[in-house]
């Protein structure tokens, strides 16, 4: 029942990589119309002149995936999910700053 396939090498999708529109929709499980809306809201900045040629920076993938999950799992629309993601990012940044400051305080004690 079990078979070992060959070793697969992973490709990290990171800085400098651009992801095609269709792959963005697939990976983040967001439909094309919602991706349009997110681009119009300024949550992501695609390159390319026409939407058919749009490519997105791979660095936007983590936040777009959160947007996709929130839309799907909580039944909120694109602009609501975009707002939630921006607030979550602010929250995470504040938590990081608090941790940094706590370390600073600990270092000075």
């Amino acid at each position, binding site marked *: *029942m*079990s*078979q*070992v*396939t060959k*070793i*697969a*090498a*992973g*490709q*990290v*999708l*990171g*800085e*400098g990589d651009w992801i095609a529109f269709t792959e963005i929709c*697939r*990976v983040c499980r967001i439909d094309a119309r919602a991706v349009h809306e997110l681009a119009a809201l300024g949550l992501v900045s695609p390159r390319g002149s026409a939407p058919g040629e749009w490519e997105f920076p*791979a660095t936007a*993938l*983590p936040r777009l*995936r*959160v947007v996709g*999950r*929130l839309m799907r*799992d*909580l*039944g909120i629309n694109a602009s609501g999910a975009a707002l*939630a993601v921006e607030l*979550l990012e602010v929250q995470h940044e504040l938590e*990081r700053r608090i*941790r*940094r400051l706590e*370390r*600073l305080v*600990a*270092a*000075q004690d």
Partner: protein
Amino acid sequence: MEYRDYYRILGVQRTANAEEVKTAYRRLARKYHPDVSKEPNAEERFKEVQEAYEVLKDPEKRAAYDQLGSEWKSGQQFRPPPDWGSGFEFGGGRTRQRAHAHAGDEAQAYAEEGFSDFFSSLFGGASPFRSATRGGGRDHHARIDIALEQAFHGTTSTLELKRPELKSDGTLEVRTHTVRVTIPSGLTEGQLIRLAGQGEPAADGGRAGDLYLEAHILPHRLYQVDGRDITLTLPVAPWEAALGASVTVPTLGGPVDMQIPAGAQSGQKLRLRGRGLPGKPPGDQYVQLKVVLPPATTAEAKAVYGEMRAKLDFNPRADLTG
């Protein structure tokens, strides 16, 4: 496998209507959604809730589930009845993939949509409720937890993927594939790794789906991570801070020598350029100094502190006096 009481998980009566089921799901999803929740075990709870909703929101699946009867209790040993699924029209299903963690120094991976064996035996895998794949194969998603050292050096991970496959006689069979994945160095939190063609195979010879792994970096004993930058708190003696010193500092790439400038203070940050996580450009390592006082427990130590008091004209609270 163990029976799951989906009504109990959503906290609704067996007689609840579609609207009540939806409301209960929405409330619990908002409470336990792993992207927003601070609840302990949020992820586990959320998956249970999602699985329950997957069944109860779908009239066909709910009716089939209800046919099992109301005598079952959560956790009870369960086997699907032999005539399972007969008499129903089969609608949309859901792909299923499980990735098991392996022992050793390998990264740990979890399937993102790993529903329970109970769910899979009834509605996933080879069950008649699963929809056939048309066109290309679907993508699979899994999450992978890696240690900071693994993110720095690269790592390998062994994934066990269960996939329904079409046999030559036209029936579906669940097969386990073991995939060994090499993961390059320089991963950062939340980044995706694409394994082309390692998703679901296409039923009709079309393009296989891809497998995407979402990387999460585990907390580290010494280092804090912020993107590609690393911060280490380095304890130093008062004379090292005051007079300057050359010290050996651990970094992910191995120990390096670092010069502490004379007159350094506790809390001050020094930068080791390019010693963070690899990338273009690589991150930096910040070294935050923490001056640690030697205890004054011996006569000798007390004498040294006494001498400092006598000879140094030092008032640390000079700023506080108006």
